Structure formats: C-alpha cells, structure tokens
C-alpha cells in the first residue's frame, strides 16, 4: 500500500501560484488501487503542468499503460520553485497528480524529453522524489528511471542520471518493459540483473552497460558494452499501423489553463520532406498515415469525451497527408455550426495550404496563416532542402490575403550552415514584397506580416549533425541588421513585426543536443547552482551555464561541443544508437547541402536509400483513399455542441 501525500500537500497549496495545477482530478483521468497491479509507472513531463498536461506522447502512454491489467500509470510534472521550497520545508516528496502518491514508490519513472531543456528539471524531480541523482547509486528500492522522446535519441548527456532509454515510438515498448519488470520483481532480481534483462528489449538502451573512452583530441575513442546483455547497437522502435493505436481515446481535460486546449489527433507520423535541419523529420521515418476513417472516429469520440471546442489535426506537416483534402471537407461538413474549430498546423508554402485553411475555417475565425520558408535566400533554402521559391511564397501569401486573411506569419531560422549576412538580409526584402503583394491582393493597406526567427541548433541524426553551430554573437548581429533592413522602408516596415529570441539559449541547447557523457557533470553543476526550467527565459541563465561548462569540462569546452565542425570519421556520441538512417547517406546529404543540392520527398519519388526502411523493416504507409464517413445530422441552425445527447432527444420529442 502506498499512501497519498495529499493531506500534507494541501495546507501548502493556498500559499502558491496556480494551485489547481497540483490537484489532478482532470476529466478522463483515472486511478487504480496500488495493490491491484504488479507494475507501477509514474510518467513525467519535465516541465510545468501547463506545458506537460497537453503533451500527446505522455497522454498516449498513460492510456496504453492503464488499459493493461498488470500496470497502472500516474502522471507527474515539474513543480515550480514556490511549491518546491515549501515541499522541501515540510518533507513532502515529488508526487503524482492522479493519486498524489510519492514518485519514489513507483517501479518505473518514465520521463518524456521533447527537448533537451528539460534535463535540469529531471534532476529537480529526482531530488524532490528522494531518488539518488546518479543511476549508479540506486538500488532495487528506487524506480527505474527511463528517458524517452525525441531528445532521447542522444541521451548521452543524461546517461549518468537515467537507468534506461527507449528509442523511438513508445506504444509497444512500454508494454514489453512492463513484462520484464513484472518478472524481475517476481523473481526478486537485483538492479543489475533487471537492467540486463531490460537491455534485451528491442529499442531499450541501458547506458550503464557501456563504457565510453576518449582520445587525445578530446573526441570519443570507443563506446564499448561492458555486459554480454548489451547489444553493440540499439535500434529505434516504430509503431506500424496508426489505426491500431487510436490514442488518446479519452483526452485529459484539465481544470487548469494549459498551452494547448484542444482535441488533438495525430493524422500521420513521420515525414520524408527531408528538411536537413529537422531532427523530428529524420528520426520518425517512414511516413505512416492514419486512415481518414480512423481520423474521423478519433475526432468524434474525442470531442464527445472531452467537450473541447477545437480540433487539431497534428503531424509534422499535416497538409501532406494523402487524403487531407477529403479529411478537411468531411470534418468541416460534420462540425459546421457546432461551435467546433478545426485547425491544421501546417506551414507549407503553397496555394493548397491556403485552400485547406479556408475549408477548415469555413464557419469561423481567420486569425492568421503561417508559412515557413525557413531560409532567407534561394541558395540557403537549397542548403536546408526547403524547396520554396520566392515567387511561390508571394503567390501563396497573395492568395491568403485575397481570401480574407489579414495577417501571415513567416518562420525563418538564423545561423544555418553556410549562411552569410546577405542570406538573412534577404528576409527583409522578402517581407517587403509580401506586404506589397498583400496590399495589391487585399485591395487595402492594413495587411500585416510577422517574421518569426529562431536560432538554428544542429541536432543528432540529421545531415547537420557535423555542422558547426553559429555563435550567438553572430546570430544576434545578423538579427540586428535584419531589423534595420526591415525598417529601412518605413511604409512597409510598419506593417511587419519581427519576433526573435537572442542566440544564447540556443547555444546551451546545442551543448545539450550534441554533448557526450562529459556534459552530465555540466548539467549537474548548473542545476546545483540553481538552474532549472531552462525553457523559461525568466529562469534561464546563460552565465550560469557558461560557468558550469568552464568549471566541469577538461580539455574540451563549450565551443568544442557547439561551434566546432565535426569530421567524417569522428565517433559521434550517438553513433551506437540507430535511428535507421544510414551514416553514409547522412554524410552524403551533408555534402549535398554544402553544394546546395536538393533531395526529393520519397513519398512521391523513388527511394533515395536513407536506410530507414530496410534497417527497421518498415515501409511508407499511405492511407487508402476515401473520406471520413460520420453520422451527419443535418444542423438546422448553429448551436454550441457537436454532441447529441439522447436524454435530451427524448425530451425533445415530448
């Protein structure tokens, strides 16, 4: 039996900001009696509740695990410093929001890392939970700390702090881990034996079973398994048929305000556009589409279960679903006049994208459309493999303005490989042209464009994994020049907003992204000096990170891990972790990038041998053609809900 800590937590809650985020009780959340199952999972999103609650990955695994008869799963999130201080003072440990059970009592603590900026919060969670920070210091009484998510494709910087890493899609592997843990507990295996068993689960990497040595040049000399149970290479997992995994079926609806308040349906996973900067697109191959019918059923059931008034059709590039036109029309037909908004995060620069957006906003708001050319010049867009001409962009935004949108957002990156000042300054002339074209198309002067720029961070398992990151001073200087260039024409510049973040946080993200095991000490130092919530500018301290790197690194430094370009034969910290991409293909694609040569999308053109499908035994899965057939109730007039409650129907017929 594990007791709830709520009674000791409750008196602290009136003293903190937004206490509702700590009480749980979300619609569709559920709890199981502790002793009813052998395996207990605590699932953690290492950021604030408002960011973590809507996370799809965590929500999916929560439901998948709770559907099992041998497991229960509860959720835990990072605790803000105001409550954390009170919890330390009153001896209240890190808790789950479902049953307020102490996290330290669970068998597995699964942590989902969408970004590397959650690493310091991992340490806060472990510390508040009373779990030793270092995996080597834990025994059978402690949870197995498991990292997953995109950032876990290079888990080396947190190798000291985690026991296990799951590579790739989580739907199936969490069940297999549950099976092993169940047996290990029943047999009373010690921690080392348990970890060795887990190392045999495909997709599971146990960092503690490998030794890393370094050469005189500072680079890795070798990564060697120290146990027969540890495979030389660990391959990622791929969930094949999305229609078999219609999760979340019962989306969690929080009482607290969160960053995404909508019913999300993943319409496909993976992306083969081949944008060279995009880690998500590289590590989630191949494309697997959900069928239009499957999408329709998830939307219908999810709206009924949640009551949300917005549906997001999610993926890495949603307009690319082969049946998206039919999906959009049939959902728009079904939900027109029910107070339900439909949205499709897509930044594709073409007219079809505008048509889609138009269809989805038939009965409602047309706030803004977003397009992502990513690179300022034609040459740079070839380097990053984002094939958009300026002409296409101008035609597309003109169409948008013509059809009633007054505002477009344009996404770019700064600091891309081979980039010069001139490439970035071309963003200004592009934005000016967008306003000119927009005024012509809309027939009015008040059209607006927002240029939003982020600093580029080279990521593992991409062709840019060898690239030198651009120093923050260079990024900041280019962005200053860009601002001047945009405002050089006052009459156009006043209709253009420029949003950017300074380059320093990206430098630390770069350190954590491509770091090796030596970065663990830097993370621990920064955290001991007070660093956490790295994704929040009010908590992020560049100086603290720089000082931590300077004090903990020996022979190598911050620049070595970030701005240094790597050679072809250098052993990269994640080379023993297999995303399916062929290393030779990645290198060739990097060379093509430097020569500004483009690569097609293999969904529509022949295979170009990136290596994923043959290595992983997977294939591209296109949805069968067809539309979403949903029970269409003629809507005589606008109302506020898509749900027909039979109780009221009976009342109506009276």
């Amino acid at each position, binding site marked *: 039996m594990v007791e709830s800590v709520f009674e000791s937590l409750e008196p602290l809650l009136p003293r903190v900001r937004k206490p509702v985020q700590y009480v749980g*009780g979300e619609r569709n959340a559920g709890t199981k009696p502790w002793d009813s199952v052998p395996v207990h999972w605590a699932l953690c999103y290492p950021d604030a509740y408002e960011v973590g609650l809507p996370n799809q990955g965590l929500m999916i695994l929560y439901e998948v695990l709770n559907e099992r008869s041998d497991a229960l799963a509860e959720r835990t999130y990072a605790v803000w410093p105001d409550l954390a201080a009170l919890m330390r003072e009153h001896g209240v440990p890190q808790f789950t929001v479902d049953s307020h059970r102490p996290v330290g009592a669970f068998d597995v603590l699964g942590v989902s890392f969408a970004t590397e900026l959650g690493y310091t919060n991992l340490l806060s969670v472990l510390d508040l939970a009373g779990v030793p920070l270092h995996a080597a210091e834990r025994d059978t009484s402690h949870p197995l700390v498991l990292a997953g998510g995109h950032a876990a494709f290079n888990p080396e910087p947190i190798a000291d702090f985690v026991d296990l890493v799951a590579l790739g899609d989580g739907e199936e592997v969490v069940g297999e881990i549950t099976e092993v843990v169940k047996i290990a507990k029943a047999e009373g295996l010690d921690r080392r034996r348990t970890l060795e068993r887990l190392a045999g689960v495909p997709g599971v990497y146990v960092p503690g079973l490998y030794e890393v040595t370094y050469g005189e040049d500072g680079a890795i000399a070798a990564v060697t398994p120290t146990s027969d149970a540890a495979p030389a290479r660990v391959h990622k997992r791929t969930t094949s048929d999305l229609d078999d995994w219609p999760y979340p079926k019962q989306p969690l609806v929080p009482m607290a305000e969160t960053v995404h308040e909508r019913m999300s349906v993943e319409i496909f996973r993976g992306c083969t556009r081949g944008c060279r900067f995009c880690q998500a697109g590289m590590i989630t191959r191949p494309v697997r589409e959900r069928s239009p019918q499957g999408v329709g059923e998830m939307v219908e059931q999810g709206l009924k279960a949640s009551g949300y008034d917005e549906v997001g059709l999610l993926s890495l590039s949603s307009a690319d679903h082969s049946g998206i036109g039919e999906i959009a029309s049939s959902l728009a037909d079904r939900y027109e006049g029910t107070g339900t908004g439909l949205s499709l995060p897509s930044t594709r620069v073409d007219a079809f994208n505008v048509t889609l957006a138009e269809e989805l906003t038939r009965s409602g708001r047309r706030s803004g459309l977003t397009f992502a050319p990513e690179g300022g010049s034609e040459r740079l867009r070839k380097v990053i493999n984002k094939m958009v001409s300026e002409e296409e962009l101008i035609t597309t935004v003109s169409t948008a303005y013509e059809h009633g949108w007054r505002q477009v957002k344009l996404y770019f990156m700064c600091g891309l490989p081979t980039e010069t000042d001139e490439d970035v300054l071309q963003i200004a002339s592009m934005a000016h042209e967008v306003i000119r074209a927009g005024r012509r198309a809309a027939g009015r002067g008040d059209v607006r464009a927002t240029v939003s720029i982020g600093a580029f961070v080279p990521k593992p398992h991409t062709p840019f994994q060898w690239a030198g990151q651009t120093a923050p001073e260079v990024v900041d200087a280019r962005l200053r020049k860009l601002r001047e260039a945009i405002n050089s024409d006052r009459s156009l510049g006043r209709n253009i907003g420029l949003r950017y973040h300074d380059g320093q946080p990206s430098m630390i993200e770069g350190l954590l992204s491509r770091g090796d095991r030596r970065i663990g000490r830097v993370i621990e130092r920064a955290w001991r000096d007070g660093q956490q919530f790295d994704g929040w500018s009010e908590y992020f301290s560049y100086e603290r990170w720089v000082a931590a790197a300077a004090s903990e690194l020996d022979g190598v430094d911050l620049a070595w891990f970030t701005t240094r370009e790597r050679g072809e034969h250098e052993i990269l910290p994640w080379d023993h972790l297999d995303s399916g991409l062929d290393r030779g293909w990645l290198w060739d694609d990097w060379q093509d990038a430097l020569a500004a040569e483009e690569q097609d999308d293999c969904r529509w053109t022949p295979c170009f041998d990136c290596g994923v499908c043959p290595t992983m035994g997977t294939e591209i899965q296109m949805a069968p053609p067809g539309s979403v057939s949903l029970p269409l109730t003629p809507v005589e007039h606008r109302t506020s809900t898509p749900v027909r409650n039979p109780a009221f129907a009976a009342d109506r017929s009276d």
Partner: protein
Amino acid sequence: MAARSPKAGEAPHPSAPTVAKLRMRYAKRGRARFSSHRDIARTMEWTLRRAGVPVALSHGFSPHPKLSWIGAAPTGAASEAEYLEIGVTEDLDPALVAREVDAVLPEGLAVVECVLAGPGALADRIDASRWEIETPGVGDDVLASAVAAFVAAREVSVERLTKNGPRPLDVRAAVAELVLALTRTDEPTEGGREDRARAATCGRLTAVVRHTTPAARPDDVCSALRAVAGLEFPEPVRATRRAQGRLDERGELIDPLAADRAAPTA
C-alpha cells in the same frame, strides 16, 4: 472544395435564438476549490458541450456561448452556492439538464439545482454571502474573544491588493454577522463530544458578508481578526460559501432561485 467567405465582422450562420434561460446552482468542493473562476468558466463550457446542452451562441465574428456568471468564489475557497445563467436554444427540462451536466462534470464540481429563469435579473437577488470558515490550529475559545472584539469595533480596516494597488477595505462595514458556528447546521448534531474536541483545535466561524466593491473575502475577514485582536492563523483557513442571496431585515439570506421556482412555467 467550395468555401463560403463570411463578410468581415459577421458570423456566417446566425445563432439559433435563445428560447429559454436556465439558472444553475453548482458547488465547488474538495480539491476543485483550488480552481480559479477562469478555470471553472472554461471547464463549464466544455462540460456543457460534453453533455450536449444546446447553448445559444452570441452574434458577431467570434461567437461564444451565452453563459453569465454571478459572482465567483475566490481561488482556494469552496462553495455550495455558485450561480450560472445559461441561454439555450431549445426548451429543456431543467432537472434533466441538471442530471446530464452533473454526470459529466469533473471531480469536485457538482450541480446542486437547475431551474427555468422567471422574470427579473438574478443579480438583483444577490447582495450577500454566508461563509463558513474553519480555522485549523485556532480553537473556538480563542476565536470567541477575537470575534467579540471585531463585532464591538466600529471600523476594521485591512489592506487589500487590487488592480490599482493596495487599498484599504473596511471589513467591519461589509460583515453583517460574524459568529462562532458552534453547531453545524449542515450535519447531524450527534457526536457532540467529538465536535467539541475538534472545536478546541479547529474553530469554525459563520460570516454573513455583504457584496461590496472590492468584495470582502473570507481571507479579509481573517485579516480583520488579526488586525483587531492580534489573532494569528498557523495554517491556512478553509472557507466554504454556504449560501448567497438578498439579505433581508432579519439578517436572513433569501434563496435567489425561490422566485424562479415559484414562477409559472413558460
């Protein structure tokens, strides 16, 4: 894909007309008391959609459901008497709405009653609240002398942080009645000994507070006791709004839905 473009500033489909207004009394209990009014409002909108209640939508470019809220208990306070008016586009049995909405509310929120609105504005029937305030760590005997000092005072001013900065608030003027709740009105009176034992370590007050601007909240009442008698609360107090209504000459609160229940059904 033929799309119809709405004209600027105009919704493409006019909302169905509001045929009836429902008045709902709901409770916020247990851990739901930590939700803010915004949290409740959002939750209630989603809940009404889940329950399939046909709520009328406002006109305009960005239509929103026609819900109006009368007052709202502050974050951290529980309540048995919160009120909401709902414009609906169909004639519905209010008791059925109460049942269906209650069934899909999240834990801690509950529908107490739902009636069809009769003539008159609900806001005009509410000018005061009755609060029950539990004071863990402060027993009834200690409370009693502080309450006596408060009642005897002509004015008890506390500082209250408002949008426009700190502002003095005369809590004494807002409080119509402040007494020790020696016997609970909402629980059976058996087990008197246990009740007395608890009263020694956790006092219980009943406060009838007029709705002034800014509103005097249970916290302010406690601050006033601190100001007037130097009373310190070692643990956060727990407040529950028991009722809202119009304060009559005898100091009683008139149930704001009584008039609707009495009104002939439309």
